[in-house]
């Protein structure tokens, strides 16, 4: 494997000639796991490199080249998320929309979605490739706004404030989305596993 994060001595400089060799696969994997759209991802990679060239004088060497490029790409991905979700009329969710997971009157689990033990209660399930595959498929089925909110929070460690601002989601909707996403992922895993 290549050493793609040069330490101290090279940290302050950018070397665009090596960007494709060093980072293209990484950035591609980063984007395709978030957008699932081959052509769009290719466009974004190109835009990322070109945008980085445009502003390479702004690079202060406080982060590595790789982190800096990834941040540029991530902003472009957030732009896509925003464009996708702003087209949706129904960005407002209420807890009542959970009616299919829970009984709307008393909040009990509905039969179809009630959690059962099926092997993902302990972290040893992490090693199970089948679970990973099913989970991946389940994630692709999420509404795009939910997917965006959920991954920005758990994968990209963005603050709730940033996510709400960028994706124009209210704080209370944020909570509802996080809840529904998890309930739905869990249910999907169980359904496809058993």
């Amino acid at each position: 494997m290549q050493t793609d994060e040069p330490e101290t001595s090279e940290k302050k400089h950018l070397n665009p000639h090596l960007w494709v060799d060093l980072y293209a696969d990484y950035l591609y994997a980063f984007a395709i796991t978030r957008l699932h759209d081959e052509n769009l991802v290719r466009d974004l990679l190109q835009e990322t490199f070109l945008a980085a060239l445009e502003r390479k004088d702004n690079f202060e060497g406080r982060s590595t080249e790789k982190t800096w490029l990834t941040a540029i790409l991530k902003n472009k991905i957030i732009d896509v998320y925003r464009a996708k979700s702003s087209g949706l009329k129904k960005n407002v969710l209420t807890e009542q929309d959970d009616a299919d997971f829970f009984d709307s009157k008393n909040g009990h689990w509905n039969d179809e979605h009630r959690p059962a033990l099926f092997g993902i209660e302990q972290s040893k399930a992490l090693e199970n490739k089948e679970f990973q595959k099913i989970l991946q498929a389940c994630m692709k089925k999420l509404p795009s706004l939910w997917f965006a909110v959920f991954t920005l929070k758990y994968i990209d460690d963005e603050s709730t404030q940033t996510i709400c601002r960028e994706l124009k989601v209210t704080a209370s909707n944020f909570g509802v989305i996080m809840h529904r996403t998890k309930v739905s992922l869990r249910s999907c895993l169980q359904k496809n596993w058993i």
Partner: protein
Amino acid sequence: MKELNANELKKIAYNCRKATFLIEKQQVEKITAREQLELKIHLAGCSICVTFMQQSLVINQMVKKLFQSDAIKLKLDDSFKHHLQKRIEDHLEKN
């Protein structure tokens, strides 16, 4: 903290939607002492939501694993890499 009356206690004890909402909420932010108590009361009597909580935490870890871009063996094809390289070199020459 306000005392929970019997009616409120009953509502919490049986409301799995509320309990799972709190389970998710506490994974991303601090929940209030009252919410903690509500959740504790619910979980004491609801093994289904205990299972949910265990599975929810494992799902978080699984999702993180799915997104480790360093470990993902997806590769861009060479022809597109050449294309990218050329765009970069062209740009560098121009400037």
